C-alpha cells in the first residue's frame, strides 16, 4: 500500500515539476508547481510527519504558490521571456541534471542512511518544540526576532501617508 502511494506521489511530484518547467502557459505552469509542492507534502505524510506536511500545504501551496500565481497574472509573458531553445542547450541541460542526480544519489547511498532503523517511532513534534525551547533557544530567539522584524516591516510598508487636511 505504502509503496503504491509512494510511487504515485513520485510520479505526481516529478511529473508536475517537469510540467511546471515545460508548460507554455505560465498559469498552468504555476498550477503544476502547486501540484509538485503538494506531492512533497504527501511525502511528509508518508514519513509520519504530519506537522511538516500541513505546514508545507499551508505555507508553500497556500502562500508561495499564490504569490507566484499573482505575479504571473500581472505580467505579460512576452515582455520578460524570450524563447531561446536549441538542441545543444537541451542536451546539455539533461546531461547536467543526470550528473547532478547521480552524484547526489551516490552521496546519499554512501552516507549512513542505509543503517537507519526504519522501525523506530516517528519523532513527536512536541519533542521538537521542547528541544527548541531548551537546547536550541538562541536559534529560536533569532528566528523570533527575524519574524517580528518582518511583520514590523510589513506594517511599515503598508502604512498610508496621512495627507494634510484629509482623512
Amino acid at each position, binding site marked *: 500500500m505504502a509503496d503504491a502511494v509512494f510511487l504515485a506521489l513520485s510520479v505526481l511530484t516529478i511529473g508536475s515539476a517537469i510540467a511546471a518547467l515545460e508548460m507554455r502557459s505560465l*498559469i498552468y505552469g504555476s*498550477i503544476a508547481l*502547486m501540484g509538485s509542492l503538494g506531492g512533497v507534502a504527501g511525502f511528509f505524510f508518508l514519513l509520519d510527519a*504530519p*506537522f511538516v506536511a*500541513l*505546514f508545507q*500545504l*499551508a505555507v508553500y*501551496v*497556500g*502562500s508561495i*504558490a*499564490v504569490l507566484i*500565481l*499573482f505575479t504571473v*497574472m500581472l505580467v505579460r509573458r512576452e515582455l520578460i521571456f524570450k524563447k531561446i531553445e536549441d538542441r545543444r542547450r537541451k542536451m546539455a541541460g539533461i546531461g547536467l541534471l543526470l550528473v547532478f542526480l547521480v552524484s547526489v544519489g551516490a552521496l546519499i547511498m554512501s552516507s549512513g542512511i542505509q543503517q537507519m532503523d526504519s522501525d523506530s517511532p516517528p519523532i513527536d*513534534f512536541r519533542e521538537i518544540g521542547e528541544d527548541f525551547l531548551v537546547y536550541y533557544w538562541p536559534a529560536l530567539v533569532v528566528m523570533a526576532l527575524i519574524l517580528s522584524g518582518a*511583520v514590523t516591516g*510589513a*506594517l511599515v510598508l*503598508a502604512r*498610508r501617508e496621512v495627507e494634510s487636511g484629509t482623512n
Partner: protein
Amino acid sequence: MSVIAPTFRLSYFLRSILDNVFWIIVLVTLVGIPAIQIVLFYIEMPVIDGELLTPFLALTWLADPSRAVPIIKALMYTDFFRIAVFPGFGLAALLAAGTIFVERKMLAKLQLRVGPFYCGKVEGILQLMGDGLKLISKEIIIPAKADKPIFWLAPVAFVGTAAAFVSLIPVAPGWVVADVDLGVLAVFAVIGFFPIVTILSAWSANSKFPFIGGIRALHQMISFEIPLILSLLGVVMLAGTMSLTGIVESQDFFPWIVFLPVGAIVFFICILAELERIPFDLPEAESEIVAGWLTEFSGMMYGLVQLGTYLKLYAFAALFTVMFLGGWSGPMLWPPFPEEIITDGIQLGPVTATIPGLPILDQAMLNGVLWFLLKTVAVIFFILLPRGVFPRIRIDMLLSLGWYKLIGLSFINIFIALALLYAGVLGPGGMI
C-alpha cells in the same frame, strides 16, 4: 409538433403509470438490489443473536423487522455515512440551505420588506427549492475566450475545499469525519486553498470584472489570514493541544471566550472578511464590479459556488463555536430515552412490539449535537446580521484594518494568553 395543453385521456394516463411501474420494477431488480448488495458487502455487518449478518440476511429485515435497528446502527457507524450524511456534507448542506433562506427573510424584515413570499404559501418557505430548480435548469454559458478547464474546475474545487473544511469540524464527542491530531493546522492548510481557487476562477473567465474581483478577494483573504491564524494561537496555547476535539474537551467548565474576548472579536472580524460578507464584500461589490469574481458563472456553476460559500460560512461559524464557545459542552437538556421501551416494548392495544438494539443514539451525543447546533446557529446569525446594517468599507480601510489593528490586537491576545499561562491560572497544570 408540441402541444402546450394536450387533451386529457384516462387511458394514456393509466398507460403511463403502468409504464413507470414496469420500469421501476425492472431497474430495482437489475440495478437497485445488486447495488445494495454490493454496498452491504463492503460494510462491516453487526452480529445479531450470535449470527453474523451477511448481505443476504440483511435484506431479510423486510421480513424480520427486529433486524432493522441494528442494521441502521451499523450503517451509521460507517465512514461513508459520516462523510455524506451526519457530521459531514449532509448536515452542512442542510444548514447552508437554511442559512440562505433565513438570510433573505431576516434581511427583508430588517429593511422593512417582505422578502420571499409567494413560493409555498407560508412565508415563502419553498423559495429555495424554486431557486435550486431554476439554477439546475438554466443553461451554463462559458465565455468564448475563457480558459475552459480551469473555468469548469473552479466551482467544483471550491465546493471540495469547503467540504474538506467541514470534515474537520467535530460536532459531538466522537462524531467527526476526520479527527486529526493537528486539527488547527489542518484548518489553516485548508483555508489556504480558498484564495487559489478564487483567483484561478477569476482569471480563467477572461473578463475584467471577475479579474478585479478576484484580485480584491486575493488581497483580502491573504491579509486577513494572518490575524485569523494569530488569533487562534491563544486558544491553542491555553488548551495545550491542536486537536479540535481536544480543544472542545478543554472547555468543559468555561468557554475560552471568557478569558480571550479580544481573540474572539479578532477572529470574528476575520471570519467576516474571509467569507466576503458585508462590510467586507469588496470582491463582490455589485455597484462597482457587477458581481465580482462570480460575474461570469451561470446556471449550476453559480449554484455550486454559492453552495461552497455557504458551506464555508457554516464551517467558519462551527470553528468559532469549537474554538471559543465550547463546542458541544453544555448542561444536559436532552431527555433520557425511556427505559420501558427498551425493556417492555411499545404497547399498541393488544400487540406488544419489542425492538432490539434501541436506543439508536445515546443521550450525551444528542445533547452535544443540540448545544453545538444552537451555538453555531447563533454565530451564523451574528455573521448574517451586519449585512442589514453596515455599508461596504473602502479597500484602504480594509487593508489598514487587517494589517494594523487586527494583527496588533491578536498579538495583545497572545500576550493575555501567555500571562494567564505563566501566572498559573489557566492551561495545562493551571489552577482552574
